[in-house]
């Protein structure tokens, strides 16, 4: 068996998160270019602040301003930054203990090269142009001497972004942040699904039969869900079948491609033991019924690829309906 089909799969979602009282305080302060810590019951200052005291479990009673300068407690170097990381060129990750804090925070250090990084190095935050985004309000940290140099030559190096003007404390507290998450995968289908998809590209339907119970699965599955054994015997199937059950869709939704009302049905292909969902077009919705004989309407051949959408929809064949007891056990 050759390598199963695989394709890139990109998923993305913008997580919106409500911050709550403690992180809201911290993030609101960041938007005003200040960094807050919280004093714990043992007197230690945690920066970023804890939401619940590690010893007593109570919310912080006192916020204290820390930094903005601090010292590197530990560091490493990233030669090839990953998508989403604070800087696009090589940079250091560091645990940074801000002045006045007893704990460290994780952030990027824009140091130019690894040999400029060291434990104990003094760093300062470099603020991002945008405020109110959360921890990314701090674009990165940089060596104190670099920050000072840049302050002294405010029109400094060509191509360098100009240090943004210190914003005033925002009128409104920041209560929400949005974190976009994008992930890339190489999605692989099973060997059975590969055969199925390759056959679809030729306008054919292929199922697989379980060697134990004899049931035919379309699309094939990695294992028979009844017996837990691979279903390797391929079965050629026609593109005709019956409607086992259906519903009339009257509700519009985003991405809908057929005008309402229309019928979404469970279609059981002749010779298969598991139904799949598809559209029934070609007759008024109120004429669709359980047991109705249907056939696949394929898209024009030039639009075929290795996907289930090669079948545009199913339409009635006009043959007599199947008897209820012939499909009752497939409901």
């Amino acid at each position, binding site marked *: 068996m050759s390598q199963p089909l695989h394709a890139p799969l990109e998923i993305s979602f913008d997580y919106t998160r409500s911050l709550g009282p403690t992180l809201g305080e911290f993030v609101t302060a960041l938007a005003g270019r200040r960094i807050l810590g919280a004093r714990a019951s043992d007197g230690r200052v945690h920066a970023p602040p804890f939401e619940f005291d*590690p010893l007593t479990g109570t919310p912080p009673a006192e916020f204290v301003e820390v930094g903005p300068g601090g010292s590197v407690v530990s560091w490493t*170097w990233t030669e090839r930054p990953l998508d989403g990381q604070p800087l696009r060129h090589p940079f250091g990750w560091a645990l940074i203990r801000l002045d006045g804090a007893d704990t460290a925070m994780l952030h990027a250090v824009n140091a130019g090269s690894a040999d400029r990084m060291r434990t104990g190095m003094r760093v300062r935050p470099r603020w991002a142009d945008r405020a109110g985004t959360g921890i990314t309000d701090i674009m990165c940290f940089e060596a104190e001497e670099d920050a000072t140099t840049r302050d002294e030559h405010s029109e400094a190096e060509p191509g360098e972004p100009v240090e943004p003007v210190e914003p005033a404390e925002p009128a409104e507290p920041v209560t929400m942040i949005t974190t976009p998450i994008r992930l890339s995968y190489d999605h692989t289908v099973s060997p059975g699904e590969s055969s199925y998809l390759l056959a679809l590209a030729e306008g054919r339907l292929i199922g697989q039969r379980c060697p134990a119970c004899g049931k035919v699965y379309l699309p094939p599955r990695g294992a028979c869900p009844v017996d837990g054994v691979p279903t390797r015997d391929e079965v050629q199937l026609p593109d005709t079948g019956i409607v086992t059950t259906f519903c009339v869709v009257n509700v519009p939704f985003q991405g809908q491609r057929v005008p309402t009302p229309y019928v979404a049905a469970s279609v059981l292909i002749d010779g298969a033991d598991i139904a799949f969902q598809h559209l029934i077009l070609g007759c008024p919705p109120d004429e669709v019924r359980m047991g109705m004989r249907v056939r696949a309407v394929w898209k024009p051949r030039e639009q075929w690829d290795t996907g289930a959408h090669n079948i545009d929809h199913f339409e009635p064949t006009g043959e007599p309906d199947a008897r209820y007891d012939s499909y009752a056990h497939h409901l």
Partner: protein
Amino acid sequence: MTDVAVIGFAQAPNERHSPATTNGVEMLVPIFHEVFAATGLTKNDIGFWCSGSSDYLAGRAFSFVSAVDAIGAFPPVMESHVEMDGAWALYEAWLKILTGEAEIALAYGFGKSSAGNLRRVLALQLDPYLVAPLWPDSVSIAALQARLGIETGLWTESDMALVAARSRANARDNPAALRQAGSSDVSVVSGDEASAESEGTVRCLWELLARPYVAEPLRAHDCAPVADGAAVVILAAGERARELCGRPAWITGFEHRIDSASLGARDLTTAPSAAAAGNAAGASRAQVAELHAPFTHQEIILRRALDLDDGVNVNPSGGALCGNPMFAAGLARIGSAATEIINGRADVALGHATSGPALQQNLVCVMEAR
């Protein structure tokens, strides 16, 4: 209290790029058959099933539901899932037997780590408010931990390389271990694996230490390579365990603990949660220990936290450094440790699993022969 023992274990070969789907069925079906053949059980004998896996790894919703196809769950079975390593699924299975709701239980874990960019996907296990938005990768976080230990004098880069060399030497006898392309280390290490003084090992260490950093101070040999795989462990209660296995691995301690999610508030040179779990489970009695340490320095931290002296045989399988399939590697550690007892090579064995960044959460399972 009911006595519960591990009576069966199987694992899929660790692969760098498995052709399997992310729902694990192709990796799970063969090992279910293997463990049933070895124990004489069938799926109908299993009173409770529990799996460990992650949709973030699969990049799709409810991937563990598709995995249930591998069971052949008809008639319907009693089944559960944890979004954690299969070791925690085993913990749930153990509790299920202790409550009397099952006599035989099966835990499995699976992960196709190679489907996405693993060290980036793992950023999503971090604090979603103040850390994950920066996308710090798992290797960089481990590197911050490794440096702290080096600079406080707790271990050296040579100590770390020695862990890698020993793991790779041990993995020669483990058919499931990841075969690392282009790796000459295994053949360079002398047959007498533990002797740091032997010329072969020293030569090997020099070679390892001459290589470039991946994330300073970590080199490639310090990091578990990305691996796809699956593992399954069967538990049985009392008499049933004795009937099914000549030398069951009786569980005498099974504990898990967690440290703060705040990386900067933890002392990363230690693993208090591992120490607490080990203490409660009786870790220091172990003769052999399978430690789930995805980075070389983490094995050093765990040895200390679990109070394992130099006489303890650590990671005879080669450990996670030679096969770290996400969500299965911790369960495989427990299964490998249990196998040491079942095969008569040890009387007391320890299996350990970790989860989260920089050894944040730790589970210890101590087993013994009777």
